């Protein structure tokens, strides 16, 4: 589903260069639920931005759903992003003066779907997250957990091949966080690939696979529910990282 090879990402200012990703090589198989963890500055968000085609990178290659997306132009990236990727953000990022229906409608508009098709998708998506009865409400009339469910509905409506979630429960209390995680697990169970960035080890353990980043590299990559054995990182060919972890 997602194959990054030797990805380099450097942020430059006049004074300093920051290497956000260093020769990052990482793959996610179709249908996987991957949790990405790591300390601040480890490159989690940069990875997510590149995976979501929101940022470019200096070197390496990136294949998403069978297509090399390394050198797409802005139009092509936008189209591909719209068709293949769903985003869930920590702060929900709903548009405050649009009602739930119109919020979920946003990515569908850019796909150019007919109105009847959009309507059906929006209603289905809101149904899945349990908010179909509130589609005329505006975000401010909902709790944080409900707003995040709307954001999930917005991501689902486009029927993405992969869902990228950046701290999806970061702004929620524990109860709501678990509700959102239940929902993500359900979505995953339906076959959607999910990559989730989180700081919370408990939430990370609800994924199938945990990838730990440090300094822009994969420091650990392990299956959670399966054998819970470390999965050899493609970068571990050097043996350095695994050695450091052990």
């Amino acid at each position, binding site marked *: 589903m997602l194959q990054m090879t030797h990805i380099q990402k450097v942020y430059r200012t006049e004074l300093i260069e920051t290497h956000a990703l260093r020769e990052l090589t990482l793959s996610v198989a179709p249908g996987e639920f991957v949790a990405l963890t790591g300390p601040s500055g480890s490159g989690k968000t940069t990875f997510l931005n590149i995976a979501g085609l929101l940022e470019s990178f200096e070197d390496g290659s990136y294949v998403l759903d069978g297509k090399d997306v390394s050198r797409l132009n802005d*139009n092509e990236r*936008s189209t591909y*992003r719209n*068709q293949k990727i769903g*985003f869930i953000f920590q702060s929900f990022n709903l*548009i405050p003066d649009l009602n739930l229906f119109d919020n979920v409608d946003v*990515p569908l508009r850019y796909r150019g779907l007919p109105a009847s098709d959009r309507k059906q998708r929006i209603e289905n998506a809101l149904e899945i997250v349990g908010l179909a009865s509130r589609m005329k409400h505006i975000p401010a009339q909902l709790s944080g957990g409900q707003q995040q469910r709307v954001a999930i509905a*917005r991501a689902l409506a*486009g029927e993405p091949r992969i869902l990228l979630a950046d701290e999806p429960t970061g702004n929620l209390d524990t109860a709501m966080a678990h509700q959102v995680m239940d929902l993500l697990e359900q979505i995953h169970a339906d076959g959607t690939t999910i990559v989730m960035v989180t700081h919370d080890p408990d939430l990370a353990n609800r994924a199938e696979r945990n990838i730990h980043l440090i300094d822009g590299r994969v420091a650990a990559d392990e299956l959670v529910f399966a054998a819970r054995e470390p999965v050899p990182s493609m970068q571990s060919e050097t043996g350095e990282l695994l050695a450091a972890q052990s």
Partner: protein
Amino acid sequence: MFNYNVKLALKSMRRNPIMTSLMVAAIAVGIGVSMTTLTVHYMMSGDPIPEKSDVLFAVAMDSWSPLRPFDEDYPERPPHQLTFHDAERLVEMAQAKRQTAMFESSLIIEPDGQDELPFEAGARVASGDFFAMFNVPFIYGGGWDRSADESRASVVVLTRDLNERLFGGEDSVGRRVTMQGRQFQVVGVIDNWEPTPRFYDPINGGFQEINEMFIPYSLTLGLELGSTGSDWGWKSEDITSFEQWLNSEALWVQYFVELDNPRDRDEYLSYLNAYVGEQKKRGRFERPLNNEIYNVMEWMAFHEVVANDAKVLLGLSFMFLLVCLLSTIALLLTKFVGKTVEISLRRALGASRRVIFKQQIVEVALIGFAGGLIGLGLARLGLSGIEAVYDAPPGLVRLDWVMMFSAIGISIVSGMIAGLYPAWRVCQVPPAAQLKTQ
């Protein structure tokens, strides 16, 4: 997608009503001022008789002093009025399809009613061809024919207003009006006719109202009709009678001909040259041969009907519009900066820079549209003010459909131009940074 963009634009405009109002106001004021001056300019410089402006010609012959040109600033230009006797001769020879000599005068009308006092009314003394040449519309009757000119018939054509005053607006054809002790038969009443500019006599004011009545040129001698318009002289002549005045070298008659094609124009100019050649043999027209004929628009330009001041004012008003647009750009930059999060989100959800750019342009076009509508109202106010201050004839400075659509069009385009840079700027914002900072 356009409808969706309009919907988003309206929401965005409502989101910050004060800033939206400021932008609309900035464009409205700019459009109001520029459209006021543009409308005045447009009305002044428009073709007053588009269906015939290229076949009607004003005639100018250089009978001025041999010692100096008529116009020191433009020495190549002949004087643009004729002597009475030259004009009379040209009418008699009738070498053009139609021709009219004419000047402004006034007569005292003596109403039939005992209670009404005599009053003075402005008259255009002209040849019978005047009405057909200038497509003058009639509500009753018509103009007089050449036989009436030749027989010096006492006939008159009234304007609608004068007919209203004298006959209560009834069909007065055949009725009589007493002027200067003589009975004139009404042969026609013209409908509303306000050529703007008054192309047939810019010398006496391109934006004056038309004269209240029309009488034959051939009555000039009999009635001893003096000109109330401009007259110019260069020769010291001993004039003791009206007849001597008519035969003097004083220039006070305007002359127009109708010529259907360039060949007729050339032939007519040859005729004029021959006429002047003949006059030179008699000791007149001592300056080098210099006859000109000007079509309507050339005639308007010749007389600078649109004064240079008006052109400068037009330029200044568009500079003012530019200043208003710069203010709008500043406001748009501020507004769009506030939208970066939403725009970043839309980018993340699949909108390309091009799509976002179009969305912003639709919004500024709508702001421009709103500014244009209000600007039209301001322009109307401005034009009313101009009409009142300059005592302009009613309808001279009006916003017609062309100007209204132009105002809206200019406003929308102005808004879009103002929005180009802010829209481009906002499209350059990296979406990832904005989404993470939330």
